[in-house]
Structures are given as structure tokens and as C-alpha cells.
């Protein structure tokens, strides 16, 4: 009897949690496929892909913004890795004067609320003509993604076995050659993770683009935001789903990296 009660209790708590986690997502899914849905109906009256067609029509704003978003995210990844690989290498592999101080500066952007930073960047960018340009938005996204990219890159380089580098040096390889042919390939999986992370951060970024991108650069989150505030829930839901899928895929993909041993080191 108590056994059954115990399972009833566990099942109801897990059921509630499942409803809390998936309910909002299910509501979004319904809106993405709803063609007709109004009060007081609990479920849509007609389903279909009409709004998917509207979003993926090559001439639509949403489709253009999807290309803009992917372009910006791709350039952001390149910029971030070009900055983070040397920095992460130096931070993990070499003696560095003022290492603690440099780490603190690199971590600062995560420690401050960012809205006020973004509109001041927009004001500064306006003076130099970077407002409303792809380059301006990429710079803002790169600065935001850099913290995590340097952090992951440093961890990836720190995990490379130093003995292998010594061996390469003993066999006569120059430091540069050792770095490029031994250290870099061994750190590649970690750097890949950093790249995916930066790509997603850029794809999803809203606040910085909201201030710096106007009026000419419109990314997918901005389209979603505008559609939602205009009450255009189907378009908002479809664009939200496009943003959602890579995020969920990433969560499932890095599941094996999120093991307890790695996480124990974070604190």
C-alpha cells in the first residue's frame, strides 16, 4: 500500500514537472501549426503549414532575416575563434604576467548587467558609422561570445597532454610547428564545442542586436519579437521553433560532456 502511494506521489511530481517543462513548448508547437485559433476554443480549429510557407518564402522578411542571422553567426564564430585560440593557448600553456588580472577583465562582461552596455555601444557605434551594419552586430556578438570561447579554449588546451608537446620539441619541431600540428589538433574537439556555443549565442542574441542592428540589420530574434508584439503568434511561433531546434539539439549533443566530473571543476 505504502509502495503504491510512493509511486503515486513520485508520478504526480514528475508529471507536474513534465507539464511545467513541456507545456509552454507544446503551446508554442500548437501555435506554429495553427491556422485558425480563437477564444474560447482550447485547441486550434484548423492545422496546417500555411505560416511555414509564409516564413520560408524566399521573399519574406523572416527568410531574409534567417540568412542574415546565419551569416552573422558564422562570421562571429570565425572572429571569436581567431581571438580565443591564441588567448586560450597563452592562458593555459604559457607563463603570463598579470594572468589573474587578465582573466578578470575577460570575465567582466559576464559579471555586469548588459543592457546599459549595449545602448552605449550603439551610441559609440553611431559616431563611427557601425550602427545598423553587419560588422557592428558581429562585433557586439563576438564580445559577448568571447568570454565563453576563451574559457572553453583554455580548458581544451589545458587538457592536452604536455608530454606529447615535449616529445615533438625533442624531435626537433619548432614551437610554432608543435602548436599547429600537435596541440591544436588535440584541442580540436573542445574548440569545436566553443564554436557551436558561440554560433548559438549569436543566433539567439536579442538585446545587443536590438540596439546596434537598427534600422538595417534584422535578425531572426528581432523578427520573432516584432511578430509577437504585433499579435502575429503563428509567425512568432514558427520563427521561435527555428531558433529552438538548434538549442535543443545542442543540449542533447553535449549531454555526454555535461558529466559530473567536468562540472565538479567549475565551482
Amino acid at each position, binding site marked *: 500500500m505504502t509502495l503504491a502511494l510512493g509511486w503515486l506521489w513520485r508520478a504526480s511530481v514528475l508529471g507536474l514537472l513534465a507539464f511545467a517543462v513541456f507545456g509552454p513548448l*507544446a503551446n508554442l508547437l500548437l501555435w506554429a501549426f495553427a491556422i485558425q485559433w480563437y477564444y474560447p476554443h482550447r485547441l486550434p480549429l484548423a492545422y496546417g503549414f500555411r505560416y511555414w510557407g509564409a516564413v520560408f518564402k524566399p521573399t519574406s522578411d523572416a527568410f531574409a532575416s534567417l540568412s542574415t542571422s546565419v551569416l552573422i553567426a558564422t562570421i562571429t564564430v570565425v572572429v571569436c575563434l581567431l581571438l580565443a585560440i591564441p588567448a586560450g593557448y597563452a592562458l593555459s600553456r604559457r607563463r603570463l604576467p598579470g594572468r589573474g588580472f587578465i582573466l578578470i577583465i575577460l570575465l567582466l562582461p*559576464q559579471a555586469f548587467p548588459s543592457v546599459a552596455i549595449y545602448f552605449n555601444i550603439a551610441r559609440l557605434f553611431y559616431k563611427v558609422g557601425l550602427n545598423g551594419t553587419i560588422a557592428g552586430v558581429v562585433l557586439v556578438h563576438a564580445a559577448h561570445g568571447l568570454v565563453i570561447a576563451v574559457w572553453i579554449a583554455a580548458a581544451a588546451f589545458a587538457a592536452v597532454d604536455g608530454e606529447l608537446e615535449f616529445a615533438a620539441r625533442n624531435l626537433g619541431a619548432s614551437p610554432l610547428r608543435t602548436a599547429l600540428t600537435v596541440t591544436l589538433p588535440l584541442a580540436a574537439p573542445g574548440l569545436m564545442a566553443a564554436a557551436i556555443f558561440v554560433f548559438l549565442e549569436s543566433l539567439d542574441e536579442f538585446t545587443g542586436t536590438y540596439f546596434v542592428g537598427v534600422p538595417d540589420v534584422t535578425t531572426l530574434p528581432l523578427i520573432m519579437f516584432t511578430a509577437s508584439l504585433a499579435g502575429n503568434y503563428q509567425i512568432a511561433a514558427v520563427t521561435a521553433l527555428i*531558433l529552438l531546434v538548434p538549442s535543443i539539439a545542442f543540449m542533447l549533443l553535449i549531454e555526454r560532456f555535461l558529466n559530473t566530473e567536468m562540472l565538479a571543476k567549475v565551482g
Partner: protein
Amino acid sequence: MPDRRPLSLLLVAPALAVVLALFVYPLGYSLVSAFTARDGQPSLDNFIKTFDLYTTDIVFTLVIVAVSTALTGLFAAAIGGYLVLGAHPAAVTLLKWLYRWPLFIPFIVAAQCMRTFLAKNGMLNNTLDALGLVDVTGLSGLLDWRGIIVTFVWKETPFVALLVSGAMAALDRASIEAARNLGAGSLRILVEILLPQIAGVMTVALVLAFVTMLSVLSVPIMISGGSPTMITVDMAFRVNSYSDYGVANALGFISYLIAGLAAWIYVRHNVAGQAAE
């Protein structure tokens, strides 16, 4: 061996330059602007105007972020605790699979989900109505301060729970078994043995969550458009509608102070922790 330190600095320099130019410089610019009047003289005018117009919103922001952080900590502790102490492998596996879903979902997508889920005629009310628990015609929906808290907690709990459960799993199990043998229940083990040992990780995670919530613009706009609202929305409004950077930056300064308060609690906690050891 030759001194290669200049080379190391050279490797870090580009990244450092980007953070200095795109974070530290705008931050300084924002501070100066907050304390400068329209005529260019140093003054506190912006703050007088800010407190005149936005005191309610500042308190509102503080309460929302504080309550959300507290609830996030509570849920994260419960999830972490069950993952480590749960006696039923099936339930533990299911929970582990369940709780992570919102982890990487962008805030703006979370806001859109909640905007429909928590609405008067959203899935939450409709489900409660279908179960006969409430009458949907008499409900108003949760799209106000409560909706903001729900969205923040929904989005931040997986992150904090992930760090907390990781730290708990890395603890020595001997003390848990000892307490269990002496007859301690799971709740007691969680509160008296697990939580004190992972308090450091919990504080770091909650401070990060706290600062993140202070930085989100989309959620308060999309969940609750009206007044009172969070100061992030006020900042965007001052900038977009009035180009009033003075007051916007004064609000920004207040958001730094609130984040600083959280960081101070964290540092104090760490110092206290080290003194105790």
C-alpha cells in the same frame, strides 16, 4: 630559455583589446553619462529624475529578480538532491532527462512560449479548466510580474540545477551513508549534509543567474507590457523614445549596483567560508 612572456601577452592582446573596447570603454562611458547633466556639467540630476520616475520600477525589479533567484535555488536544490539521494533509479533517470530541456532555449523563445502558455486563454488555464479545477472565464492569466518570475525560474533552474547536481555528485558519499545509517531522512541529509558542502557552487550559480535576469530585456517586454515594469524596459524606453541617455545610464548604474550587491554577497560568503576552514 629566452623570455617569451612578451609573446604570451601578444597572444592575449587581441581578445583583451576587444573586451576593453566593447565592454570596459562603454561601461566607463555609461558611468560618466549617468553623472553628467544635459549641459555637460557633473551633476546628480539624472538620478533625481530617475528616482522621481522609476522608484517603483527599481523596487519591482529587485523583488522580481530576488524572488526568481530564491525559487531557482530552491528548485535546483530539490532537483540536485533527488538526483543524488533518490532511491528509485527509474525516477532519477526520468528526472535527469526532464529537467534540462530549457537549458539552452533562448530567453526570447522562452518568453514567446510563456506569452501563450500563461495567457488568460493559454494552455495552463485551459488545462486547469479541463481538469475541472478552475473556471477559465473567471481567471485573468499570469501575464504580469508573476509571468516574469515563472519565465525566469523556468529558464534558469536547469542551469543552476546542473551545476549543483554536479557538485553534489562529486561529494564523498561516506558521510551520506553514515547519516543514513544513523537514521537521517533524505530531506535532512540534503539540508544538513549536502547543501552546506556545495554552498559555494550554489552561490556562484545563483549570482550568475541573478545577473542574467537583470540583463534580459525581451522577457519583461513580452510577458508584461504595462506598468510597473523592470528597469531594463525603462532603459530601452528612455533611449528609444526620448534619446535620454542620462536617465537611461542612471538606471544602468543602478543595475550595476544591484549586480554588485549580489557579487558582494558572493565574495563575503567566500571569505567567510575560507575563514571557517
